[in-house]
């Protein structure tokens, strides 16, 4: 590294950079006559890109076309910069914003949370960590197509036999891919299989007896709720990784917000009035 610093070529390059940089600053404002040097390296790069796409090198004429196009592009780009067209470009703006966020994230993740912080977080957000209430049940399916016009009556007719004979459930009803019973499962899990309407209907059912019919996305069901588990809030020790994961996620957002708020203070932002319906004024 030290040798590198003493290297005359490095000094030369640094000097050159300074000169060109200064020139660039001036030229950005005042582009009288600028130079575009299409170097050998640039030409090779253009030819290489072409070859990558077409699996062959360009012909002399194609290469000339590539170079002409490059020059045109370079001039346009320089002019665009001079006109400040880069300032309203979405891609560039997003890229720069993303880098600011990266910096913030790295800062947020530098210190892991303590148990005290996590416990406080849990206390503040109990719903995020509560194990949802669960329901276990058996069900017998009645296919409306097979019992038209009154599938509901057909279903109701099965209620008494089901209540009288526990083993009848194994054969009652119509064939279906739906599971005949589910172990303790939360509402979301039940809804994924039976749909939301079914869940809404069985929540209110008294346990221990065949009830119904209730409807689902595919038809009618007689349902016997066999077990219920209330939602519980586990201890921190049992779910620490999940709490830390959620804490960190919030923390990261908070740090970013803080950084942004600090930056915001350095700006005076004026927004022109907008109309009541949110559309820009005429």
């Amino acid at each position, binding site marked *: 590294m030290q040798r590198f610093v003493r290297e005359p070529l490095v000094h030369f390059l640094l000097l050159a950079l300074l000169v060109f940089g200064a020139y660039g600053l001036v030229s950005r404002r005042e582009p009288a006559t600028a130079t575009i040097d299409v170097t050998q390296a640039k030409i090779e790069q253009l030819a290489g890109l072409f070859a990558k796409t077409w699996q062959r090198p360009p012909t002399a004429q194609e290469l000339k076309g590539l170079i002409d196009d490059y020059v045109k592009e370079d001039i346009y780009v320089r002019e665009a910069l001079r006109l400040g*067209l880069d300032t309203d470009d979405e891609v*560039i703006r997003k890229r720069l914003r993303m880098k600011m966020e990266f910096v913030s994230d790295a800062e947020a993740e530098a210190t892991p949370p303590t148990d005290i912080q996590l416990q406080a977080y849990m206390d503040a957000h109990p719903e995020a960590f509560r194990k949802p209430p669960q329901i276990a049940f058996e069900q017998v399916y009645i296919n409306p197509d097979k019992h038209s016009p009154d599938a509901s009556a057909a279903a109701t007719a099965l209620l008494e036999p089901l209540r009288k004979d526990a083993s009848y459930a194994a054969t009652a009803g119509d064939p279906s*891919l739906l599971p005949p019973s589910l172990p303790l499962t939360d509402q979301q899990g039940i809804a994924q299989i*039976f749909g939301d309407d079914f869940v809404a209907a069985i929540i209110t059912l008294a346990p221990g007896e065949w009830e119904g019919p209730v409807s689902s*996305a*595919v038809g009618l069901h007689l349902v016997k709720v066999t077990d219920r588990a209330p939602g519980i809030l586990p201890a921190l020790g049992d779910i620490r990784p999940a709490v830390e994961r959620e804490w960190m996620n919030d923390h990261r957002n908070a740090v970013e917000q803080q950084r942004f708020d600090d930056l915001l203070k350095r700006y005076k932002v004026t927004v022109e009035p907008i109309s009541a319906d949110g559309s820009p004024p005429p």
Partner: protein
Amino acid sequence: MKYTFMLTTALASCVCAHIAFAQGTENDEGITAANVAAVIKPEYSPYAGRSYPTRPLFGDTHLHTAVSVDAGTLNRVGQEDAYRFARGEEVLSTGGLRAKLARPLDFLVISDHAEMYGLMPQLLAGDPEILSTEKGRQWYASLTSGNFDTIFATAMEIVGSLSGDVPPIKSEKAVRNAWQAYTALADKYNEPGRFTAMIGFEWTAIGGYNLHRNVLFRGDASVADQTVPFSQFDSKNPEDLWSYMAEFETRTGSEVLAIPHNGNLSNGRMFTVETFHGKPLTRELAAKRIQYEPLVEVTQIKGDGESHPYLSPNDEFAGYETWDRSNLNGTEIKTKDMLKYEYAREALKTGLKLEASLGVNPYKFGFVGSTDSHTSLSTSEEDNFFGKHSGVEPEPHRWEHVVIQAPNPEFNIYGWQQAASGLAVVWATENTREAIFDAMKRKETYATTGTRMTVRFFGGYDFTSEDADTRMPATAGYQKGVPMGGDLPKVPAGKAPTFLVAAMKDPIGANLDRIQIVKGWRDAGGETHEKVYDVTWSDGRVQGAGGKLPAVGNTVDVARATWKNTIGDPELITVWSDPEFDPKQAAFYYAKVIEIPTPRWTAYDALRFNIKMTDNVPMTTQERAYTSPIWYTP
């Protein structure tokens, strides 16, 4: 705007595609008819002792985030938000829209590109490991210069470098850091029983011809950390990828599998009868391929690869969201003779042929679908589709934007051509990495184009129509046969294969039109054939002349992007016996389930953005599922 386009298209051309292959060993482990039968002894309770899978798990095995070099130039949503989104939480898309799934996924594989793994975020964060490389320093300086043309040119250079021979930035330590950060994150979000974050990456060889594979790990971070992603800079030859996988398995005692995708964009290279270097395929390589590639991703955003109308002229449902103009980046026109080496159904037939000559079937694969989305958002539903990459996230004009730009504009791929597809569905015994991996190995999987329908498919010799009338068809299925992905045992004299097939609609989706069984076979002369049977259908329709089933109808209101379930059936089930079975002919059978017509994602865009698209843009679709095949071998 032009710049956005160019960048977008450059990205897309490097963004990948896939499809795939088959699997290998003769006997599947885990759940077989025999060991299921063993546990289903007569009991008082018919539910006691059941150990077979009772609920399908829906997931995506193919998702890219900002960590992928190509996606990373536009996408600013990272791996963590990708997990949160898949688990059902709301996140912000790169375009700043609030995004949320209707229902969480059961599992997700974030499969970022192996090539310069994690380079983008590390580069942009000014990571010292990256900055210690010459290219890293140069790119960082360019990307942080604030100079328009410098940034843009650098982004282009980074994307282009993905298909080069040498990685522009070679920092094993940086890749290792990014990989281990990813595996740790996967462990953090992996929650057995609720959500599986399976570890994986994408090997992205031969960019334009898409020989890409996703590599999936059975183990956790401590296992996956014993390697780093195998990239196309290590080798562009899939045979070397299998060697890498073999070495990893031997060294760690764990398992990995690879899933190819987008054979439809390989221009005749995905399912050939030759080695990578054009030599005749050997028994050894065929065995290796099917050992490490038990599944193929047959449907995704860049087109569906189950079947093609040219190869299956007698199948009215052949071809779905078909992309068949050129290879992936549009540098080579596709000719008809290439198709037979691209589509899964034909590859299954090719496999039967190769089995006759090699003694091993390299294409004995099962099916999954996935998205290959580069937005970090796994969206495959028509009414909630966030597009292929962050350049085509929802906005009024995305349907007419270029997704993949070709040197010849004729081969450009436009926004409206994207398919809102698909899902990988797995019949696993529980929602864990191990159970899902094992189900994939035994091919007990199916693909859907984004819908969450439930599909069962069993083959045996003794199924009768009563089995379709029992309370629990799956019990009969496992007792008397093999599930999807399995092999029929030796045929008893005078019998023909029978199949128990059943499907249930997505609880919030459309009714079903029909179930088909697709049969492919090899005749005595070594030629292969296929036939598609409608085996059960909705609404009591009657087959017309030549056995043709009338169309199910159409209830779609395109202007309002709605439909009614007044046609079709919520469930279909039947037992079907092969009427043309010849015990001397090797064959495969798989089920294809088709929904009634529903609005395509373009109809939702037209409604929500109040725009009119051109007449060539399809506004309705019939979503479908494809099960892994069941094979019969004489």
